[in-house]
């Protein structure tokens, strides 16, 4: 096979997977980097793309990368030459890094009217959905789950969590324990350790172990049960409410400094936190919308709504992240 036929063959393969949308030549293209499942056909990407294109006289192009951290890395590596106008999906725990990296500029959107569990007025990073980390269980296997972090450690359950070095929820749990126990966090980890069946690289491995019945509980989100109710009509997967409160998971959007159409990007942020885009969030991204007017599906009414939301300020999280992961590692590796 000659190189030419080979390239043709591969190009054919690429063409088969993605029929390129016809673009009017004079329309500006708004390029959005995000994680792949956000951009995928079953994520919020297509709905938001269609909705914004209807009002923006532009072409919206989602680029799905493996994770939001991957997308962030790519923007940093591309520097001035980045094609990205917007980054979607960074977690609060990485907000400090995002700000310090200098690759983003102010979004200009008014966040005051948003329905958020914490106060947030960051000029660079705009939240577009949120949820809380939680331990999920199957009511058929575990009727009465523990009601607190403390009770979890005192139980005889087997749980699966994720590695904070490679997973967002894993890092969230490290923050959660720190927020509750402060400097006594290592003690708590020591007590929790016998309950931990194993630690996985990513969320999906943990969740699969849990669904297979291998673990009694898995670290996930308060919104996880909603997926099973809406998509599968299964009502036995629930999240346990912990009385110490739950740590916040909030996804952020930002406009890149290298964008050649910052105004369009800012308009997109406005659209993203507006009612139309937000209405798509619950059943495509399985998170809570930031807009209070959005009518939630019934399933969301049954979800755990923590009385206390735990969250570190972005700078504090960024400054301590490495040390706290190290602390976790030391206990878990003992």
């Amino acid at each position: 096979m000659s190189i030419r036929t080979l390239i043709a063959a591969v190009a054919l393969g690429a063409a088969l997977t993605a029929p390129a949308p016809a673009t009017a030549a004079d329309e500006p293209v708004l390029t959005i980097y995000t994680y792949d499942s956000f951009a995928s056909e079953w994520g919020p990407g297509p709905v938001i793309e269609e909705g914004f294109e209807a009002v923006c006289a532009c072409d919206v192009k989602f680029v799905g990368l493996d994770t939001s951290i991957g997308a962030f890395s790519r923007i940093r590596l591309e520097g001035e030459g980045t094609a990205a106008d917007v980054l979607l999906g960074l977690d609060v725990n990485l907000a400090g890094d995002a700000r310090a990296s200098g690759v983003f500029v102010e979004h200009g959107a008014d966040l005051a009217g948003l329905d958020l569990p914490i106060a947030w007025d960051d000029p660079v990073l705009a939240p577009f959905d949120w949820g809380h980390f939680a331990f999920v269980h199957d009511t058929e296997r575990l009727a009465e789950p523990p009601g607190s972090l403390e009770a979890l450690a005192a139980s005889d359950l087997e749980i699966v969590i994720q590695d904070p070095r490679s997973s967002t929820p894993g890092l969230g749990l490290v923050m959660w324990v720190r927020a509750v126990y402060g400097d006594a966090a290592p003690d708590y980890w020591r007590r929790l350790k016998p309950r931990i069946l194993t630690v996985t690289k990513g969320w999906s491995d943990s969740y699969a172990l849990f669904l297979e019945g291998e673990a009694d509980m898995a670290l996930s989100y308060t919104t996880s049960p909603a997926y099973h109710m809406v998509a599968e009509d299964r009502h036995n997967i629930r999240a346990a409410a912990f009385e110490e409160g739950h740590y916040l998971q909030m996804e952020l959007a930002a406009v890149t400094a290298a964008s050649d159409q910052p105004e369009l990007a800012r308009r997109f942020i406005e659209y993203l936190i507006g009612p139309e885009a937000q209405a798509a969030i619950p059943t495509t991204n399985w998170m809570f919308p930031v807009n209070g007017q959005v009518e939630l599906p019934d399933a969301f009414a049954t979800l755990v709504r923590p009385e206390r939301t735990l969250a570190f300020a972005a700078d504090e999280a960024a400054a301590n992240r490495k040390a706290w992961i190290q602390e976790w590692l030391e206990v878990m590796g003992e």
Partner: protein
Amino acid sequence: MTAARLAPGFAAAILAVGLAGAAIGAVGIWAGGVDLSALMRDPYVRGVTAFTFRQAALSTVLSLVLGLAVARAVHRRAGPRGARALNLLASLALVMPTTVAALGIVAVWGRAGWVAEAAAALGLPGPEGGLYGLPGVLLAHVFFNAPLMARIFHAALAAIPDGRWRLAAQLGFAEREVWRFVEWPAIRRVAPGACGLVFLLCFTSFALVLMLGGGPAASTLEVAIYEAARLEFDLGRAAALSILQLLCCAAVLLVLARFPADWSAGRGTAGLGARIRPDRTARAAQVTDALTGLVAAGVVAAPLAANVLGGLRAELLGLPSDPAFRGALAASVVLGLASSAITCALAWAIAEARRTLVLPTRMGGRPGLVGLVDLASTIYLAVPAIVFGVGLFLMLRGVADTFALAPLLVLAANVLLALPFAVRAIQGRLAEIGARYDRLCASLGVAGWARLRLVEFPAIRRELGFAAALAAALSVGDLGVIALFGSDEFRTLPWLLYLKSGRYQSGEAAAIALVLLALSLAFFVVIERLVGGRHAGR
């Protein structure tokens, strides 16, 4: 003439080594330098390195032991059909996405697995959480690698000349003597290469080690690399860790290179030897083989079966109507075929160069350079995909559209990944052909293209068929490099699997995993026959 035989292989080798080196170099340069000595003093890194070595060494030894036992049992009892089944099994285990395999192992050996259920039914104590920890890591690595070892060893046994078996039968050798005088000399030649390959595969394992290792006490260097490259965006450290990993792997390969070895044993007459070996009917051998079968069933066959059953239960029927699935399937098929063709061409060139290099000096050999060629055909196993991907990205960023290049880069990565297996599949037979026909060809003037067409290809096509099938199966889509290259326009099946399992759709993920296995199997049946001809797979 020698130059013509060396040049293509050398070019391929230099390209492979150069690309890996340049990628890591690009990352280091971007980060403004690499500090290896600071890394060596870091207790975290030292602990992780020590564990990585320990688990890889243990996994290699266990795979070696089980692989050897399986190879002998198959050779003693199973005949050519058993050998074919072994080939398939080895290839399937190799191409399974690691986390899918891990779930299969959990389904058998986990707290709620088959073994636990059976134990509960019998009123016996089950495995509980005992899987998680070093046992889980070893179990998983043996699952992947013991079939590979068994395949290599079985080929070596099948290549033992019948005469030696006749002699053994006549002298009335018991099992011990058969091993010592007949089998060991054949195994010894292939064992170092096989061990090196398996060690590398285990050394760079990541998600599997974490998940079945039970926690961060079981972290490999790859985790640290991922952490540095991704979470901390500390590319200098990531590059340094990559170099450390390469050095560790190179050290192990160098130690193994001190043993006289030839990876592939060439081709056996496959038949008489197995039937007349004198230890077939020995009671001890029968017991060993039965035990081996039991262990192999539990460690390899059962998890594989669990995956197949899981996939069958899942939403298989919905898949064909899903455009995302159809696209990914098409991409994986094209990728597999293209990668297979390129891999075979490169592997042939490298194997040809290698066999020329190992000739005596007066015949044009240069034994000193064999190392370079071997390095080329193994290096990618030790290069962390994430750093390789970042490096490629940095090199290409200024000169080309990285989005458009994504499919080609994935292809390149797949080729490099499949190369070690393909080279090893053909190099033994190619050397054998050279030894047999070099003089005749030279004296007749059969050279160049005519020689490839008339002598090499017909003689190695069976092995080439296996290499092509394996490369295609391995290349239906590697996950490593795609991460940074914008993948939503070029999704392979493993990528779709990753995506679905990350979005609650574990049922579809299991179905995709099954399709992946079926596709690999189909590649084996079709490509091996097409390239390998009538006698393929024997």
